[in-house]
């Protein structure tokens, strides 16, 4: 038995209530870590894998196409290390439910633009050998049980072929892997040259967007100005953004994510504050006689006040520690799912420290009132309540 033991014994006394309060705190702090990480991803800027990239799109709408001539012109610029065009391909495999992202790309440059993607040399060789070859992210291939050399039929729904059909057939050249910390989403990559020669004439020589890998020494902003300046007066002006800004802009179509995250956090913690304050108040009222007995035994007013405050703070801090630990445990899974959407998603030590500080603050806020009541609790009147 010690003072700490007394605090823990008090928390264990009503286990169901303590566990439920504890779990609500844990969930609140998991949400805190998650939303802080998302908020940071949206407000911060990072360069992935040490590679500088610029995303290039039609100026007025993401749904407009750009002429391939633009891509060829940009390829000539000295600031450009490599460029690949991409387009939404749409379509599905066997069943409309089997959706995954597909894009025609420049097979010669795509993996140069995205050097962090892990792909075997022989896969690239097979990709280069056949126009119908595709390279697919490992997870997609595993999902459908595809093996190298398999013929993969895709039913198109955006681009009709020259013969008017929507049936495309590709041959799997191999797979590539997306590193866990990468923001690149899993793709089914087909060759642009095959796509371009197969589609109807009105689609030919157009691309959805392009990704430029910038020469290391060059500031991407400089290239952005150069590209957009060059095509400003053309019939197809461009809008270029750094990769981070592009990802943020894409996701921000859903709304101001940082503001949404902050508002959700505010609502969650306000609710938690009310809930735990109610529990602390209930707990205090139930234990008035016990606290009076502790005082009777010779424990001072401030000791009893601290005892009550410690219980609230212990619960909050343990909830925060558990929530933070769970968040770090979920980080790899969350990265896998969120990096393609929000960019550099990760948990930050600073946020963990902030969570603990918040837990202490909540503990003080909800504990201070019952603690003060305990300090000023008159022994005789309180003991009389127990009779």
């Amino acid at each position: 038995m010690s003072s700490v033991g007394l605090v823990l014994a008090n928390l264990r006394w009503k286990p169901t209530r303590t566990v439920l309060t504890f779990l609500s705190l844990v969930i609140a702090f998991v949400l805190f870590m998650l939303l802080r990480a998302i908020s940071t991803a949206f407000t911060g800027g990072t360069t992935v894998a040490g590679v500088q990239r610029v995303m290039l799109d039609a100026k007025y709408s993401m749904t407009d196409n750009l002429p391939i001539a633009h891509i060829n012109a940009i390829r000539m610029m000295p600031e450009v290390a490599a460029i690949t065009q991409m387009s939404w391909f749409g379509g599905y495999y066997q069943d409309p439910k089997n959706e995954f992202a597909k894009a025609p790309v420049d097979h010669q440059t795509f993996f140069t633009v995205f050097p962090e993607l892990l792909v075997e040399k022989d896969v690239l060789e097979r990709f280069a050998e056949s126009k119908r070859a595709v390279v697919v992210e490992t997870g997609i291939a595993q999902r459908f049980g595809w093996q190298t050399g398999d013929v993969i039929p895709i039913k198109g729904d955006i681009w009709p072929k020259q013969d008017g059909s929507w049936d495309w057939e590709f041959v799997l050249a191999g797979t590539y892997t997306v590193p866990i910390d990468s923001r690149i989403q899993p793709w089914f990559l087909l060759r642009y040259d095959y796509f371009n020669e197969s589609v109807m004439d009105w689609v030919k020589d157009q691309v959805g967007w392009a990704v430029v890998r910038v020469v290391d020494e060059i500031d991407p902003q400089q290239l952005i100005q150069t590209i957009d300046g060059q095509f400003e007066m053309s019939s197809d002006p461009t809008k270029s953004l750094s990769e981070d800004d592009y990802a943020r802009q894409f996701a921000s179509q859903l709304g101001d994510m940082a503001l949404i995250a902050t508002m959700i956090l505010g609502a969650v913690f306000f609710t938690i504050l009310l809930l735990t304050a109610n529990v602390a108040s209930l707990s205090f009222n139930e234990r008035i006689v016990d606290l009076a007995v502790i005082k009777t035994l010779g424990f001072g007013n401030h000791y009893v006040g601290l005892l009550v405050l410690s219980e609230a703070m212990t619960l909050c801090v343990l909830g925060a520690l558990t929530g933070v630990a769970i968040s770090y445990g979920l980080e790899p899974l969350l990265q896998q799912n969120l990096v393609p959407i929000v960019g550099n998603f990760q948990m930050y030590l600073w946020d963990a420290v902030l969570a603990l500080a918040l837990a202490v603050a909540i503990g003080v806020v909800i504990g201070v009132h019952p603690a003060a009541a305990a300090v000023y609790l008159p022994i005789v009147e309180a003991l009389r309540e127990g009779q």
Partner: protein
Amino acid sequence: MSQLDDQVSIRDTLNLKKVLIECQNLTHTYKRGGETLTVLSDLNLTIRQGDFVALMGPSGSGKTTLLNLLGGLDRVSSGVVRIQGVALDQLSESTLADWRAQTVGFIFQFYNLLPMLSALGNVELPLLLTKLNSKERRHRAQTALTIVGLTDRTKHKPSELSGGQQQRVAIARALVADPELLVCDEPTGDLDRDTADEILALLKMLNQQYGKTIVMVTHDPKAAEYASTLLHMDKGVLLSLRT
């Protein structure tokens, strides 16, 4: 007995024991609905070390109030309570708490054990205020439980004990810091006759073998028979004394 209003001394003229408790012109009032009620009126009382005093009287006569004042749980409105020469009204709140921890053991009618602690934990609790280490505290708590005959129930929670066993734990808790004075507020009020007799015998043993001074409020004349001195109170004044 008509001279009691002046001063009640429970000292046997041949008994030279030291004075432990001294109340002088003790008056206690409280306010209820704007009205001031007098609970104790100009009460004088002396209790010596090693006395076992039973305090009887009808409900509302001021017995429990007197007990609370002797135990340092409440402050007098006027007059003086001196225990071992210490005037309690002169002590600050924190000093009074320290004094209670060292000097008084409390035994209540409804035991007032902490439900979340085991019997051993309850008995060990007052020792958190001492400089004893964890091992010493545990040893001493076990000794106190042995004295009250509860060696085999140390790990049980109060809810797992009978009323008599809970009261024994409460007595062990009152004893464990080795206080000079035990104040008991109807310690057998919630117990059947046989269990009550066991508890009273235990208190008598603590008084006779360990020299504890006991002041016990009771409504039960049989319980009062265990005491060496009987005081009657009514309407805040002492009426009679029997030794």
